[in-house]
C-alpha cells in the first residue's frame, strides 16, 4: 500500500504531499508506539499511586473513611501540620525517627562502601581461589531479602541464637546472654544486617568499575615511582569516580528508605532505637489507621529525598566538570 502510494506520488509530484505525510507519520509514530506500553505501565505502577498518595495526604483518611475514600473530608495541610508540629508527640517522634535514619544511613553507606572497596581491591589481583571468593561475597546479595534477614533474626535470638552462642559459650566475650533485638542493641543489629547485604552490592559495582581501568595506567604509574597506595588513590579512585557517584547515591536512597530490614527483624513496631523513617510511616498509617497522616509523612520524605538527591547530583557533576 505504501509502495503504491509512493509510486503514485513520485509519478505525480504535485499530489505527493499528503501521501508522504501519511507514510512519514507512521515512521514518526513508531518510537512513540514502542514506548507506549512502558509509559502506560509506568503511569499505572508509579505515577498514579504516587499522585494518589499526594491526594491522600490532604484528606482525613482515617478508619471512618477507609471503606469509602471519596467521603474523606479535605483537610488541606492539616496532616502536614500534625507531622511537622515538633512540640507535639507525633512531630517529636518523627524528628527522632528522622535523626535515627540519618545516623543509620551514614553508618551503613560508609561501612558498606569501605567493605565493598576493600573487597574489590583485594580481588583485583589474580590469585588462586579468586573465583570462589568472588562467588562467596555475592551470596548475601543473591539470597532473597526476606530469607536472609529472617536467618539473621534467628541468629540474633537471645536463648538459642548463634551470635550469643559464639560470644558467650565459645569466645567468652560476654557473661550473660545479650538481647540483640530489643533496646539499643536493636540499632546495631539492624545496621549490621543491612551492611551485610549492602556491601556486596558496592563490591559488585566497584569490581565492575575496576575492570575498565587499563593496566597501562598502573604500569606507567609504577614506572613513575607511585606505590600501591598512590595508585589506588589517584588511578583507581579517579577512574571510579562516576561509578562512585551513582553507587553512593543508590546506597543512600536504599538505606534511607529501608523497610525490609527493620520490618523482618522487629515486625511492624520496632524498638525506638530502630524506628527508622519508612517503618515509622508504616506504623503511623497502619497501627493508627490514619492513612492521611502517613501519606503526608511520605510526601515529606519524598520531597526531602528529591532535594538531597538534586543537591548531591549538582555538587558532584559540578566537581567533575571542574576536574
Amino acid at each position: 500500500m505504501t509502495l503504491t502510494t509512493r509510486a503514485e506520488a513520485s509519478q505525480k509530484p504535485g499530489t505527493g504531499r499528503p501521501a508522504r505525510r501519511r507514510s512519514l507519520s507512521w515512521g514518526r509514530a513508531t518510537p512513540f508506539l514502542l514506548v507506549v506500553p512502558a509509559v502506560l505501565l509506568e503511569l499505572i505502577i508509579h505515577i498514579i499511586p504516587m499522585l494518589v498518595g499526594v491526594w491522600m495526604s490532604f484528606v482525613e483518611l482515617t478508619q471512618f473513611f477507609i471503606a469509602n475514600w471519596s467521603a474523606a473530608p479535605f483537610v488541606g495541610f492539616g496532616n502536614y501540620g500534625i507531622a511537622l508540629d515538633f512540640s507535639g508527640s507525633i512531630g517529636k517522634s518523627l524528628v527522632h525517627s528522622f535523626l535515627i535514619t540519618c545516623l543509620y544511613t551514614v553508618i551503613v553507606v560508609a561501612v558498606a562502601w569501605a567493605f565493598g572497596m576493600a573487597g574489590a581491591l583485594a580481588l583485583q589481583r589474580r590469585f588462586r581461589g579468586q573465583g570462589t571468593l568472588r562467588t562467596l561475597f555475592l551470596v548475601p546479595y543473591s539470597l532473597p531479602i526476606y530469607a536472609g534477614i529472617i536467618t539473621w533474626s534467628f541468629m540474633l535470638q537471645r536463648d538459642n541464637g548463634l551470635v550469643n552462642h559464639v560470644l558467650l559459650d565459645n569466645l567468652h566475650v560476654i557473661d550473660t546472654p545479650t538481647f540483640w533485638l530489643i533496646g539499643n542493641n536493636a540499632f546495631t543489629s539492624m545496621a549490621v544486617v543491612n551492611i551485610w547485604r549492602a556491601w556486596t552490592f558496592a563490591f559488585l559495582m566497584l569490581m565492575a568499575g575496576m575492570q575498565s581501568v587499563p593496566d597501562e595506567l598502573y604500569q606507567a604509574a609504577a614506572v613513575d615511582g607511585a606505590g600501591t597506595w598512590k595508585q589506588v588513590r589517584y588511578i583507581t579512585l579517579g577512574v571510579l569516580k562516576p561509578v562512585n557517584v551513582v553507587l553512593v547515591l543508590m546506597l543512600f536512597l536504599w538505606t534511607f528508605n529501608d523497610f525490609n530490614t527493620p520490618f523482618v527483624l522487629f515486625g511492624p513496631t520496632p524498638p525506638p532505637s530502630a524506628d527508622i523513617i519508612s517503618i515509622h510511616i508504616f506504623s503511623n498509617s497502619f497501627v493508627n489507621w490514619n492513612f492521611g497522616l502517613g501519606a503526608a509523612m511520605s510526601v515529606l520524605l519524598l520531597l526531602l529525598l528529591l532535594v538531597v538527591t538534586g543537591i548531591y547530583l549538582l555538587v558532584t557533576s559540578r566537581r567533575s566538570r571542574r576536574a
Partner: protein
Amino acid sequence: MKSRTIASTVVLLAVATTAACGGSTENASSGGGSGSTAGGSTTITYWASNQGTSIQNDKEVLGPELKKFEKQTGVHVDLQVIGWPDLLNKILAATTSGQGPDVLNIGNTWAASLQATGAFMPFDSKALDAVGGKDKFVEASFATGGAPGKDPTSVPLYGLVYGLYYNKKMFADAGLQPPTTWQELMTDAKKLTNPSKGVYGMAMEGGSYTESVHFAFIFGRQNGGQPFDDSGKPTFTTPGMVAGVKQYVDLMSQKVVNPSSVQYKNGPEAPTDFAKGKAAMLMSQNNADNVLQANGGMKPSEYGVVAIPAPNPLPPGGKDVASFVAGINLSIFKNTKNKDAALKFVNFMTSPEEQAILDKPYTALPVVKNGTVNFTSKKDEAKAFAEVLANKSEPLPLVPAESAFETNVGNAVNGLLAQAATGKTVTDADIKAALQQAQDKMASAS
C-alpha cells in the same frame, strides 16, 4: 489507512494494558476476594483466624464442616486460614481496597473499630433472623458485636476468657495451693522460680502486643483504672491504669518470668514453655488447652485452672476482674455478591450442632444459649472458665478507637517489658510517660 492502523494499534495497546490490569484484579478477587457464581453452584470465600494448634490444623478441623455445609446448601466455601499477626492488617487492606472475602473471623475486641469503617454488613433484624435470631446467642458474647445502640456488624462465634493455668505437680512439690490473691501469686511465683534450671514462676508472651494490652486492661480494672472515659476519650495515664501496667510489668521486674520471653510474639510460645515445665503458671485464654496438649505433650490432669486473682484488698475503685469477654466474631463484608449464601454460612457456623463440634478442637466456650462447656472433660476447669465469663469478665471498651488502643498501649507495654527484661528499672514515671505517648498517638487516630 496507515494512520488508522496506528490509531487502532494505540487503542489496542491501551486496552490490552488496562485489560491486563483488570485481569489481575479479577484474579486477586477470586483468590482473596468475593466469591463467584458459576454453573449454578455458589462459592464464597471465608477467612478463618488461626484457632487451632497450627494453620494446617485449622484446615483439617474446618474442612469436613465446610464439606457438610456444601452438602446441605450447595454453597462451596473457599477457606483461607490467617495467622493472628497478619489478620488485622489483611482486614484493613481488604477494607481499603474493597476486595475482601465474603465472610471472615475477627477478634471481637475489634468489632466497634471495624464497624466504624463501614466495610461490614450491619446485621439488621432481617439479617439476624436469617442467622437464627439475636436470642440464640449468649448475651455477654452478643454484646461484643459492635458499638451499643447500633446494628452489630458481627456475631459471636467462639467464646474465650482468661484463666490462670498452674502446673499441679510443681505446686504440690513446693507445698503450694493455687493463689487466690495477686500477692499470693507473686510469692508463689518467686518460690517456683529457679533460673539456673531454666524454670520460672510465670510464662509470658512478652512480645505480643495483644496479650500486653489485655493485661493492661484487666489489671487496670483491678486497680480502678478505665482506658476510656464515658465520652470515649482515652484516659490511659490515670493512676489506676499506671498501677495496672505496673502490676503486669512487675512480673518481669521481679524476675519471675524468663527474660527471653519478651521476644515471644509469633505464636503459642508461652503455653509451650508452661507445657514443658519451664514455667509453673500461665495466664491464658481457654484456647491454650489444645496447645498445651498438642505442642507441649501435657495431659489435662497435669494442670489446673483458677481465675486470675486480684490484689487483696482491692485498690480504691478496683474491681475483681479476671478477664475481658474475649472471643472470635463472624462478620460479612458489605460488598459481598453472595449475601444469602454468606448469611446461611454464618447461621451454619453458629448453629448449636456446629458449636458443639468446633468448641472441642478449638477449646472454646459456647456462644449460643444452653450450650455446654465441652472442650474439657475436667469439671473443675469448665466451672472455673464458666464462672470467669459469668461473674468476672468485662467487655473491652466498645468504641471505634479500641483497635488503636490495643496497638498503641500494647506496644507501649511491650517496650516497658523489654526495658525490665534488660535489667533497667521501670518506674511509675516511665510507665506514665509511655502511656502518655500512646495516648498522644490516639489523638491522631480520631
